């Protein structure tokens, strides 16, 4: 896939298919360590052990619609060709955590891409699921938790395109500032402190 944010969307959709009602996504970038790490954690039904052992095999899938499962094997390949690795932790009935690491400056590392578009597809496409997006760059952090947002918005629906449009604009500004290192970005839960 041409952007890491598309992998994020794909892995998050896997969690939702596994019955999750909460998906946490973390992107962590470290200049000093030259690492970029993606982590997608869900509270779905978990992956069977035999499937975890064979994540590199595109012909292994939990799907019933077709017999190939490309998503996780693509992410594994992407991280490994960038001096990274993938870790899959799963507990049946509790959830799954997928962590993929990359050498940040590796020439083959795909750009992170449009994470706001990924969050948009997730948040609006699955109005009854909560998503928490955390992005950390060298210790500065941005957090968007739809559970908190829904509470603050009261009767308004976060998945309404008009409401979301304003949230997305704010998110783009915050992530832009985070990427340029020009402004601090506090976690949302500290907003009323």
């Amino acid at each position: 896939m041409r952007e890491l944010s598309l992998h994020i969307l794909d892995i998050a959709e896997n969690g939702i298919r596994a019955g999750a009602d909460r998906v946490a996504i973390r992107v962590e970038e470290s200049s000093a360590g030259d690492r970029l790490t993606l982590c997608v954690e869900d509270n779905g039904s978990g992956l069977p052990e035999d499937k975890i052992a064979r994540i590199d095999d595109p012909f292994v899938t939990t799907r019933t619609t077709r017999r190939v499962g490309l998503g996780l094997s693509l992410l594994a390949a992407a991280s490994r060709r960038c001096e990274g690795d993938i870790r899959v932790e799963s507990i049946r009935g509790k959830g799954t955590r997928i962590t993929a690491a990359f050498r940040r400056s590796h020439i083959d590392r795909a750009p992170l891409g449009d994470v706001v578009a990924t969050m948009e597809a997730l948040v609006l496409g699955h109005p009854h699921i909560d998503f928490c997006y955390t992005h950390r760059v060298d210790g500065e952090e941005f957090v968007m938790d739809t559970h908190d947002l829904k509470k603050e918005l009261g009767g308004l629906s976060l998945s309404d395109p008009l409401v979301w449009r304003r949230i997305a604009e704010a998110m783009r500004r915050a992530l832009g500032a985070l990427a340029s290192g020009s402004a601090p970005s506090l976690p949302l839960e500290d907003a009323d402190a």
Partner: protein
Amino acid sequence: MPELTLEDLKRIKAKTTAAMALRLGHPRATITVHLGDCGISAGARDVMQALLGEVAESRRPDVQVLAADCMGNCASEPNVTVWVEGSEPVVYQKMDRDKIKEVFRRHLLEGEVLREHVLGR
């Protein structure tokens, strides 16, 4: 100053309450974008983004956009299913930003099925 503060949310809430008042009741049309790995690789996220832009512009409170899994027709992704109350669902294939805008305007707003883009025609 954090970008997404409580004040921001209050402002968003105030600005959108009036528009939301019109958005009550059950959806009378649902557009489902299939976001399996095949669809995502083929551009389904772009399709969803373009579609949500159209829905926001149209001020149609009765149109709902949802994400769903791959429907098994990976070769024709991105696939989008359009359901309008009182009719059978229609699956459109090989969508892109421009095609989904056309589907939204002509099928959703004007009631015309775009046969040239229907899957399994």
